[in-house]
């Protein structure tokens, strides 16, 4: 190899070393763990290789529950948060005077610590011997039955979880969408107005296509983020997620490694790789769909 073709590699060397040490090697290691059967943490030995770990995980009730929870979370929160963010951004965009103020308000959740926000949600929703929780007070006020959102029925807990997730991702999405809206050439709107285009048609035919790359970006990152949900769930429901029936895939992986029933890196690795496969598949589907629907400059 002559020096010319060597040089770029030399520049890349630090990044490559770093990525190899902290990304490629652990990934590879996870794969190795996931096929080692009967791995013993103390002696660091295993009895053989095969797909038993995958089979175990896929038949584990807790894992199936975690997959179900994660999917419900993803399917509800990604479209909902993107849609709400779009509505709010459109509103902000047509109220230039209030824009700065509202942008600050909507951005607050983004800079607030997850656990702190989780605590606030606890106070809002949790029923204790001393207090019903703010939301239940509201329900009472309108004459409803109080619900235990933290330790009560599954749908109530799911509701809190989805509410929380939507709320926590909104500011980022609003920020991205308001700037995307602001960057649309204003002359396009003027041209459409001269032609007497209705507001609805302007939205579907101009605004939406022009910001479609950003919406698509938000959907992809939203999917990935929601699939990786964990710390938010802990913040609301505590660490014993399996008992609460609110575990997520990442939560399952964590429990398998460090939880009370932990110490099973092989099962954890298998679950992690299954998650990886799911996210990869969904992202690929997204990319394929977007090629048809998204307009790029």
């Amino acid at each position, binding site marked *: 190899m002559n020096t010319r073709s060597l040089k770029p590699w030399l520049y890349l060397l630090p990044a490559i070393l770093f990525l190899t040490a902290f990304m490629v090697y652990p990934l590879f290691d996870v794969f190795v763990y996931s096929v080692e059967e009967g791995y013993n943490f103390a002696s660091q030995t295993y009895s053989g290789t095969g797909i038993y770990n995958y089979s175990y995980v896929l038949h584990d009730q807790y894992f199936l529950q975690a997959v179900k929870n994660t999917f419900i979370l993803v399917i509800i929160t990604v479209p909902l948060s993107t849609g709400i963010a779009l509505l709010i951004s459109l509103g902000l965009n047509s109220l230039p005077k209030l824009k700065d103020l509202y942008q600050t308000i909507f951005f607050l959740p983004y800079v607030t610590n997850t656990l702190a926000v989780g605590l606030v949600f606890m106070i809002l929703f949790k029923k204790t011997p001393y207090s019903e929780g703010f939301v239940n007070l509201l329900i009472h006020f309108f004459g409803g039955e109080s619900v235990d959102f933290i330790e009560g029925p599954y749908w109530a807990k799911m509701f809190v979880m989805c509410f929380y997730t939507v709320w926590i991702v909104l500011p980022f999405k609003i920020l991205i969408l308001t700037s995307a809206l602001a960057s649309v*050439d204003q*002359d*396009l709107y*003027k*041209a*459409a*107005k*001269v*032609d*007497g*285009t*209705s507001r609805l*048609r302007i939205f579907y*035919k*101009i605004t939406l*296509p*022009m910001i479609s790359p950003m919406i698509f970006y938000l959907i992809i990152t939203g999917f990935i983020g929601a699939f990786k949900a964990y710390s938010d769930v802990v913040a609301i429901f505590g660490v014993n997620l399996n008992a609460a029936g609110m575990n997520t895939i990442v939560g399952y992986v964590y429990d398998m490694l460090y939880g009370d029933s932990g110490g099973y890196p092989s099962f954890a690795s298998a679950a992690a790789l299954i998650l990886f496969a799911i996210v990869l598949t969904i992202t690929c589907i997204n990319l394929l769909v977007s090629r048809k629907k998204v*307009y790029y*400059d």
Partner: protein
Amino acid sequence: MKIVLDHLTKRFPNRNKDGGFVTAVSDFTFEIPDGKLVGLLGPSGCGKSTMLNMICGLEVPSEGRIYFGEDDVTELPPENRGVGMVFQSYALYPHLTVMQNITFPLENLKGKDKLTKEQMKAKALEAARLVQIEQLMERKPSEMSGGQQQRVAIARALVKKPRVLLLDEPLSNLDARLRLQTREEIRRIQKETKITTVFVTHDQEEAMSISDLIVVMSAGVLQQIGKPQEVYDDPVNLFVAKFLGTPAINVFTGKIRNHRLFIGDEPVMHVQEDDREVYVGIRPEGFILDENGPFTCALNRVEVMGRDTSVVSTHPLCENVVVRSIISTEDKPDPDAQDVHFFLKPQKTLLFDRNTQERIYYHEVPEAL
């Protein structure tokens, strides 16, 4: 259809929160005759776009009325005025093909005007043929040159057969050669369709070359309306005189004493006017090179450009950096000479009041007087 603008004024609220206003267009009154191409000309920020937006209906005037023919359209939204508009940035929808861009306005038609897909296609093709882009119908705007995009924008503006076509600096994103070509094209299209057209530009040459009438404005105020040559020959004030013509008019400070016009200490012409302080504007073609001429400048250089010779000289009282005079190539001065001497052509020598900068219409009188 003629357009009448009646005391149009547009004020924008000032951003400085002092409650003040920016007056973008001030008390504008004029009439655009039916089927003519009018060039709206003025420096950047003088309110040309604001003017056009008011005619189009994108902005509501603060005061005054707008009439299309006999109809008062001041309160009408753009789509009910029958206007087509071409923007400086073209404003083509980048995600749509040329065909979709041109049919876009037609798809908005409702009720009895509603067209079938075939009718829309036919109309789009007709408009495309007019601007000669019918072979590009399936392209996206990003796959076309600036000139082609401009034509698409014009086709889109024409597809609804507007009563008025408005063009806001349509050529400023094109390179010099394409600009010449496209402006001829616009002229041709306007002649073919006979649509009353308002063409905004800050390029005086552009306005002069294609307009039936030019309207010169400055800081929101109408300066002069007229045929291009008339306005050039007979500007009403110093601003218009300076704004039109390349090379620009040469402006000197001068005075009238005893019926003689002085530039510095040299009497250059005999006039009927009484004593006053003036600006003297001399068009580059207003100089006659002559050994015995009364007006003397320090010769700088001589530039030969094809048919014409441009004599570049300096004069201490000239407001321009150099004095440019264009003479026919036969009377070329000696390039090594220190000074050049000129006679001035009276019809190319314009006088303006020193204070108001308004034109002084004077009579030249024979020397004997």
